[in-house]
C-alpha cells in the first residue's frame, strides 16, 4: 500500500514539472526520392521539405539524414549524414550508404528555424527504391 502511494506521488511530481506543448509549431513533411548511385548499397536521395500545413517549401535548414531498419530496432543504425541544400527551394540532396537491401526508415532531422523529425519508409532494392506501400505483407508461405 505504502509503495503504491509512493509511486503515485512520484508520478504526480514528474507530471507537474513537465513542459507544456508548444502549439502552433511548424510541422514539416518530406517527399523522398532515391536512386542507386552506381555502387552497390549506395543511394542518392533528394528530399523535398515543405510545411505540412501550408505546403510552402522549407529552405535554409540544417538537415541530417539517418536510417534505421524497423525490423531490427537499434541494430542497423546508420550514421546520420548532412544533406546539402539545392538551388530548388526546399530541396536537399544526400548520399546514403546502407548495409543491406530491404525496408529502411529514413530519418530526416531538421534543425534551424524548424526543428522536427520526419520519417519516410522506403524499400531499397538492387535496382530501384520504392515507397513501402501500406499493408504490404512480406511473407507468402
Amino acid at each position: 500500500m505504502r509503495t503504491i502511494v509512493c509511486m503515485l506521488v512520484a508520478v504526480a511530481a514528474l507530471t507537474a514539472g513537465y513542459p507544456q506543448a508548444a502549439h502552433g509549431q511548424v510541422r514539416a513533411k518530406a517527399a523522398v526520392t532515391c536512386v542507386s548511385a552506381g555502387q552497390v548499397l549506395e543511394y542518392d536521395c533528394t528530399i523535398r521539405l515543405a510545411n505540412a500545413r501550408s505546403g510552402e517549401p522549407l529552405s535554409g535548414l540544417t538537415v541530417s539524414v539517418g536510417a534505421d531498419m524497423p525490423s531490427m530496432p537499434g541494430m542497423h543504425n546508420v550514421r546520420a549524414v548532412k544533406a546539402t541544400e539545392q538551388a530548388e527551394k526546399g530541396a536537399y540532396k544526400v548520399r546514403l550508404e546502407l548495409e543491406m537491401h530491404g525496408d529502411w526508415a529514413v530519418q530526416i532531422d531538421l534543425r534551424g528555424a524548424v526543428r522536427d523529425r520526419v520519417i519516410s519508409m522506403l524499400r531499397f532494392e538492387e535496382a530501384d527504391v520504392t515507397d513501402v506501400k501500406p499493408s504490404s505483407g512480406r511473407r507468402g508461405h
Partner: protein
Amino acid sequence: MDDYLVSVLSNIGVISFVALSAYLLLLTGEISFGQQAFFAIGAYAAGMATAMWGWPLALGIAWGAAVGAACAVSLGIPTLRLRGLQFSIATLAFAEMVRILFELFRYQVDIDGEPVGPNGTDGFRSIRYIFDHNIETFDFMMLIYTMLAVTLAGFMLLERSRLGVIFRMIGEDATLASLQGIAVARYKVLAAGIAGALAAVGGGLYAHLTTYVEPRTFDVMLGVHSLAYGLIGGLGTALGPLLGVVIDVGLLESVRLFAGYRMIIFGGLVALLLIFRPRGLLDERLVNRIGRLFRNAISGSTRTGRGSR
C-alpha cells in the same frame, strides 16, 4: 555531444530495459522468447497516451508500464506452470500473437488535421512528443539513463534482498525452493509482472525516441537478442545484461569494428561463449569472488584500524 553518439547511447539505454526484463525472468529460470511483446505493448500504450490523448510523457510511460505488467501477469498465470521449453514456446506464440494483433490494429484520431494513431502494418507514426515539447535529443537520452539508473538501483537492491535470493532459488531448483516454503508460482508471476513492466517502460521510451513504431519492430529477433544479452554479459548481476548490450549495440554495431559482419560475430559469440562460460561473463562465481575481495578489503582495513587503536 555528437548526434550519432547520442542516438547510439539512447538505443543502448532503451534496449537495456528489454535485456533487464529478460534477465529477470532468466533469474527465475524461465527462458522467455516473448519479452518483445511487452516492449511493443508499452510502446503502443505510451505512444497512444501522449500522441493521441495528450497525456504528459511520465504519465504515458507509467501507463504503458502498467498495461505491460497487467498483460505479463495474465500471460504468466496460465503459462508459468508449463515446463521450461514449453514455456519458452508459449511466450514465443504469445509475442507473435501480439505482433500480428498490432498489424490488424487500426485506431486513429484527427490531430491538427492529420490522422494520428496505430495504423496496421504501417505502424504508429508521429509520436512527436519530444518535438512538440522541444525536448532536445540529448535531454531525452539523459531521461532514459536516469530511468535506467533507477532501475539498476532497484536491481542492486533486489540482489541483496530476500526477494532476489528467492528468485535465484526458484531459478536453480524450483522443487527445492518450494520445499523451503516458497510459493513458487506466486513469485514467478510476480517476476513476470515486473519483467513485463520493465520491457514496457523500454518500449514507451523507444516509441518517443524514434517517433514511430511498427509491428515488425517487435519480431522474435528482438526477444532473442535480449535473452542473448543476459547470457553474454552474465547472470551473476544486473550489470551482466547491460554489458551484453554494450558489447553488441555499442561495440559490434556502432564502432563498426566488423562492419556488416556484426550479426555473424554476434551469433558466433553467443554459440562459443556458452561453451566456456555457460552463465555468461559476469557469472555468479565471478561476482562472488569480487564481492569477497571487497569484503576482505573492508575487513582488512577495519582490522588494521583496530590494531592501531
